[in-house]
């Protein structure tokens, strides 16, 4: 850090806007293309045994093109082909009224709202605990091992109990799910923030010390700004975790609504296409949340003069 102040980005020319977008999109498309090819290949490979079995049961044998064709249109494929998932997604997202129970927008929204609530609770709790650990020796020494232990509790195992206990306390709806989401998301934030808040080096702390800054001032003006890179990486992990938590919480919540319920009910009836569609919406949500946080990060770091 001491030397960082001497560091300087070199004068490199910026790209024009259009070229910038092309540069962004092209690689993504390329990688996507490669993935699609692999996916189709895998779909053929994984779905072929079933197609062959079916043909054998019917006493026929399949030529290779027939086999490939057969692997693309199964109703419950081991691995649905991309276009099948795309169709499932399209039906779920655009083919329904968004208030319909078959609409993935509706389920996605239910999951998203609990995720955001849980993420907010979780990251605030994580930050608060990190601050406590930093400023209170008793907490420093006692909280961390127990926070670790808390994370090893298999959440799916106790989620039903949590839901039961909350229900018996009269708490239902979004909150129990959000709490499970918070449970999973506070930990990455805690670990990252403890590290980040301890990142300032001795000279920076000494400066504060020489001004006899109060702990609150040291926190707001030194520790917090220098923890930003850690905070944002942690937050990205934490939203993804919150989404997982919500979905886990949706399973035992009586599997009523939300992407988790959708996944599970897809599972019961072996509807792989439904599973994959829900999965993609979930991943899309997580991806979007991560991107949003990434954008906030860029903005913040740039405003702070830290971005390169």
């Amino acid at each position, binding site marked *: 850090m001491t030397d960082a102040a001497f560091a300087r980005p070199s004068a490199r020319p910026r790209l024009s806007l259009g070229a910038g977008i092309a540069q962004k999109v092209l690689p993504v498309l390329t990688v996507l293309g490669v993935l699609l090819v692999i996916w189709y290949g895998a779909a053929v490979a*994984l779905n072929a045994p079933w197609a062959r079995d079916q043909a054998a049961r019917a006493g026929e044998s399949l030529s290779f093109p027939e086999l490939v064709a057969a692997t693309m249109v199964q109703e419950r494929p081991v691995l649905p082909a991309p276009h099948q998932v795309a169709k499932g997604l399209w039906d779920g997202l655009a083919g329904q009224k968004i208030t319909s129970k078959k609409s993935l927008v509706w389920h996605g929204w239910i999951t998203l709202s609990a995720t955001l609530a849980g993420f907010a609770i979780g990251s605030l709790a994580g930050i608060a605990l990190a601050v406590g650990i930093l400023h209170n020796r008793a907490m420093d020494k006692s909280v961390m*091992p127990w926070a670790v232990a808390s994370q090893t509790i298999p959440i799916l195992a106790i989620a039903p109990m949590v839901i039961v206990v909350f229900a018996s306390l009269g708490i239902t709806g979004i909150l129990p799910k959000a709490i499970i989401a918070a449970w999973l998301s506070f930990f990455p934030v805690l670990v990252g923030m403890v590290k980040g808040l301890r990142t300032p080096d001795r000279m920076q702390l000494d400066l504060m010390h020489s001004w006899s800054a109060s702990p609150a001032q040291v926190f707001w003006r030194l520790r917090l700004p220098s923890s930003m890179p850690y905070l944002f990486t942690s937050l990205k992990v934490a939203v993804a975790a919150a989404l997982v938590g919500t979905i886990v919480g949706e399973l035992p919540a009586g599997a009523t609504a939300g992407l988790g319920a959708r996944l599970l009910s897809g599972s019961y009836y072996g509807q792989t296409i439904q599973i994959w569609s829900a*999965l993609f919406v979930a991943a899309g949500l997580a991806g979007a949340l991560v991107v949003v946080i990434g954008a906030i990060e860029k903005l913040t770091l740039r405003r702070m003069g830290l971005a390169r």
Partner: protein
Amino acid sequence: MTGAMTGAISILAVWLGAMGLNGWLARRDGPLFAGLVAAIFGITLLILWEMAVRIYQVPNVILPAPSAIWSAFIGNLPILWGDFVQTIVKGALSGWVIGALAATVTAIAIDRSSFLQRGLLPIGNFVAALPIVGIAPILVMWFGFDWQSKAAVVVVMVFFPILVNMVAGLAATDQLQRDQMKTWNAGYWQSLWKLRLPAAMPFLFNGLKITTTLALIGAIVAEFFGSPTRGMGFRISTSVGQLNLPMVWAEILVAAIAGTVFYGIVAWVEKRVTFWHPSQRQ
């Protein structure tokens, strides 16, 4: 005065007493005291739990008392050990190691090529954000019922956090250090090996620590979606069905102990490796 009230008051009294003791102890120095403080904190929680269960007569099938959990633990050591080996040693550890290596290598690949960085990272974010509950059934379908599918779930789960941290870490060198490498005309691998990887270590360990616990969760949860008749997840879900809650909590206890030890080991290694980082020097 009602029983509930006196109960609440005695619970509160125990809590305040213990925290007072802890506050006092925390001001002493030495590793012995540090351990003591954590222990007292935990023991207090356990006592409160026991008191609450007894005073309010919570049914065993909702929340068993620590004493009941402890006797289930002691009484089932061979089963617990078998489950531990199945789930944690075979499932979680192998998956974690593979996942961590894969994430590190991917991070380096991503970092090496700006094309990949712009192409893979967004998609990687997306793929790795697939929730386990969604992938677990699929992976069980692909990799079979035994521990291999659990390891696969763990790989997917730990991949993203380590990747994100590692990518951030590889970018964490300052300009002066990179300029130096440039003046020595260090090759890509040399500056990776001698500058960027060491500088990334604090971030990498951040990811590794977070994922120790994720690995355990992943391995256990994956067993809910199909498993042989052993393993911690299997035992937990079966025991819940049998309302054998003390056994459930005994397994959770095993998970907690294993997770804490696992985390502790990673944190210990981190201390050795990143001794130079300001956060370790305080």
